[in-house]
């Protein structure tokens, strides 16, 4: 297969009367890092959630790893997926949230083991071994028996990344992963994400960290008011933006 990891064509999404996505076209190649930037309310987070079936696409085609999101295509018709199929399809992508969303009643290790054991039903010994490797990778090998609330925000977010990776996703989605962190904790999370990018993971990152976008991403996508205003390599979009809206946004952020 040589298809793109994520392919969006004219993706639309409304909440009630408000149209949040007004026809998104976007391609994310395998092994690439895409950063979505733009003002709040521009639809970046909604689009990210669509990729992971957390929101239903109203119109257009959105496919992940060659298969349509939320629908099954049969005999020229699109059939809405059942919950079970959606849950299965979600396993393609791992997701990291702005507010970590670790399970507070479970230890770090239990957080990581939960889904591989109970959703993927993989053998415990294997999952446990991998969880330890992942914890070491995010630099928290010694914190397996802590509860999330005993950890700093940066540590919690690194655990959240490990938890998503434990499902062996083909694609990682990051929804403003550093926005809820104290400034001095942002670096440790970005470092983990850089490692992951270097290891060849396909990543889509909604972020306000333009330095990170410039350094790590293969593609930067600037969105505003539900459309992709411009996209391309970081040096182009961030260094020499062609659109007025992009320029205006960058001048405010930088």
């Amino acid at each position: 297969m040589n298809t793109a990891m994520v392919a969006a064509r004219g993706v639309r999404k409304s909440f009630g009367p408000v149209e949040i996505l007004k026809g998104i076209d976007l391609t994310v190649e395998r092994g690439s890092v895409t950063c979505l930037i733009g003002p709040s309310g521009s639809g970046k987070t909604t689009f990210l959630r669509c990729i992971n079936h957390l929101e239903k696409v109203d119109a257009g085609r959105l496919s992940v790893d060659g298969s349509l999101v939320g629908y099954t295509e049969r005999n020229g018709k699109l059939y809405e997926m059942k919950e079970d199929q959606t849950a299965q399809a979600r396993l393609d992508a791992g997701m990291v949230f702005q507010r970590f969303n670790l399970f507070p009643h479970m230890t770090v290790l239990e957080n990581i083991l939960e889904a591989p054991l109970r959703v993927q039903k993989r053998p415990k010994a294997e999952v446990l071994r991998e969880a330890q490797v992942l914890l070491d990778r995010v630099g928290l090998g010694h914190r397996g028996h802590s509860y999330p609330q005993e950890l700093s925000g940066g540590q919690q977010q690194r655990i959240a990344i490990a938890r998503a990776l434990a499902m062996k996703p083909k694609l990682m989605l990051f929804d403003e992963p550093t926005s809820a962190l104290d400034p001095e904790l942002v670096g440790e999370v970005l470092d983990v994400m850089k490692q992951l990018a270097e290891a060849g993971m396909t990543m889509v990152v909604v972020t306000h960290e333009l330095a990170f976008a410039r350094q790590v991403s293969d593609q930067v996508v600037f969105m505003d008011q539900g459309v992709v205003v411009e996209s391309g390599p970081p040096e182009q979009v961030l260094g020499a933006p062609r659109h007025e809206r992009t320029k205006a946004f960058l001048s405010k952020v930088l």
Partner: protein
Amino acid sequence: MNVSPSLTEGPGQVPGPDGGTVPAAPAAHGTPAPQTHHGAASDHLDGAIPVVPLRHPGRVAMAVVLLALAALAAIDVALNQRYHWDVVASYLFAPQIITGAGLTLLLTVVSMTAGIVLGTGLAVMRLSANPILSTISRAYIWFFRGTPLLVQLIFWYNIAALYPVIALGLPFGGPSWVIGSANVLISPLGAALLGLSLNEAAYMAEIIRSGIGSVDKGQYEAARALGMKRALLMRRIILPQAMRVVLPPTGNQVVSMLKGTSLVSVLAISDLLYSAQIIYSGNYQTIPLLIVASLWYLVLTTVLSYFQGRLEKRYGRGFELSAGKLRRRRNKNGSAS
């Protein structure tokens, strides 16, 4: 009286040129900055002057008065012959009373368990996206919370008046399979259990609904993003967290159920209170037997509250840390990683 030697000590501060003090090391501890407007006051605090804590004479006086009153009451209760403590003692472990207490406990445990199971179902229905399900749940809660428990109990006791025969079958004259007479099937005990459970379910539904509502929406998203289906998500992620909010009011419900079971004495079920009533209707020792019953209610409540405490601790895991403890652990972690 313990008097701390001084508020500040050690080499943290040296006298400054203006007569105030200057921190020797920046932010060594929480003393006021040297530029303070109350130069004199800070001089005062920095010297080794003993600090006398504020005294609370009113508090002490109040405590003495209350202790004296409590002691007087205790002495009166102990020495007042009309309490008939000898009768209390002789009936405390009477077989009838013990059996009654056992039945009360049984009614409480069974009705509470059924109420929680049914209540969880009702809470999930109430929160369902299906409007029919949520309306049915709402109507159930409205009805069972809105009518007196005593009336519900008597109603179930007299159910045979409405449905003399209980049968399974198809409606409108289809074939049916008679199970038996309602009077036989729904014994007084059965009526009591039905009444208490169905009533409890309505209250538990509201408690569990509020518990589920207290769980952060991000928890659903995280669980769904990990591929969990609804049943697993509820069972493993949402309900355990809801427990923390659900347990304290449920403890209240258990205690009030324990005492509420005394209502079943109207169905001539020999629970704890009814057993006591039977005895005092024979020997006219009303007060001592009510004391016996009350002592047992207290014992049972105490035991059940103990288990409530244990459960609260169990489901408080990951939440129970105080702010101070958290800060210390975080600092430790920060240096470790």
